């Protein structure tokens, strides 16, 4: 009984130390780490001071292991739910970033080809007379500069994929 308690306590302390190390190295953000630090501290304290669990059950009235398990299970589900929400949010942000990145990359290609883009508006407004749709303008520039129609930039993109 003592051995297994010491074993669990040692694991909890190692877990605590590992969590601390992950935060220090920047692999784990503090907001998520708090949960792990908290969990490992509780396991460590309970395994090294078994009297505490009796005091806790005295106070809360929780004597049945099934009730304790149900509570722990509910907490685990809540944590998983939290992660699902976090992942959904990250996915949405990732989509927005991907789209923005692709649109900016296109804009860079158009600018390299000499298309006239002003301010936040792509293509439509051209300086001076206006009304000249820049796709035509860019094609004229291509002919003038002898640039391939972005085939080179596309090629390099594909090779990196």
């Amino acid at each position: 009984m003592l051995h297994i308690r010491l074993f669990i306590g040692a694991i909890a302390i190692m877990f605590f130390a590992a969590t601390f190390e992950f935060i220090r190295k920047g692999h784990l953000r503090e907001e998520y780490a708090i949960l792990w630090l908290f969990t490992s501290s509780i396991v460590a304290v309970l395994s090294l001071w078994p009297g505490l669990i009796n005091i806790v059950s005295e106070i809360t009235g929780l004597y049945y292991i099934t009730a304790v398990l149900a509570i722990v299970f509910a907490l685990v589900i809540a944590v998983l739910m939290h992660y699902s929400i976090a992942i959904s949010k990250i996915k949405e942000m990732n989509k927005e970033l991907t789209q923005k990145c692709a649109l900016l990359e296109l804009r860079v290609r158009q600018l390299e080809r000499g298309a006239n883009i002003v301010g936040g508006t792509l293509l439509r407004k051209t300086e001076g007379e206006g009304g000249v749709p820049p796709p035509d303008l860019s094609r004229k520039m291509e002919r003038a500069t002898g640039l391939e129609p972005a085939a080179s930039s596309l090629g390099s993109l594909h090779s990196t994929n």
Partner: protein
Amino acid sequence: MDRRIAVIIPAYNEEETIGSVVKEVKGLGDGYEVIVVNDCSHDATARNAELAGATVIELPANLGIGGAVQTGFKYASAAGFDACVQVDGDGQHPPREIPKLIEPLFEDGLDMAVGSRFLGGAYKVPLIRALGIRVISLFLKIAMGVSLRDTTSGFRALRRPAMEFFARCYPQDYPEPESLLIAYMKGFKVIEVAVEMNYREHGISSITPVRAVYYMTKVLLAMLIDLCRKY
């Protein structure tokens, strides 16, 4: 009138067909700019589209059909286009039918035109798919009181207000039926237009019979949730 129409073609591994689709659209006239959104294809889709004269948007990560089309909406909105048409890159949607979708937007002031395989035609789809399309149709009838037959058609045109709205907010996984519901909820005027469609030249539908059940569950659930939202 000098209208600029963006023809948005979301493409994933469609090197065989993309070139001819782009060329056909370009043949429609000067008012059309072809925008191919390459959803991280592994083949020469982007190169073939570019060589055929399209503006190519290269997504650096695969987003799926919803995210790809939305990228096109974002581009077309920022670039000041008056309307856009979504066309499949696999040759299923004949570009010669595009003017039929554009016309009601400007002649009748509608916001969205959906190309329909079923209006005045005998286009055959597999039984399980036909059933799914019917169920979504029924859902729209009950929820919004509208009659629409081809609820999964991805051949559709949007006038600027709807295009700008969908540029901000567009369903991601199976966007066609959901975006119809959202359009109705938003108060956009939608019309179904009879168009001819080809049977797929290359590639297979993203909806195989195996996935049909999942598709239906997901779409109906998403639409139920949409009904509880405010757009």
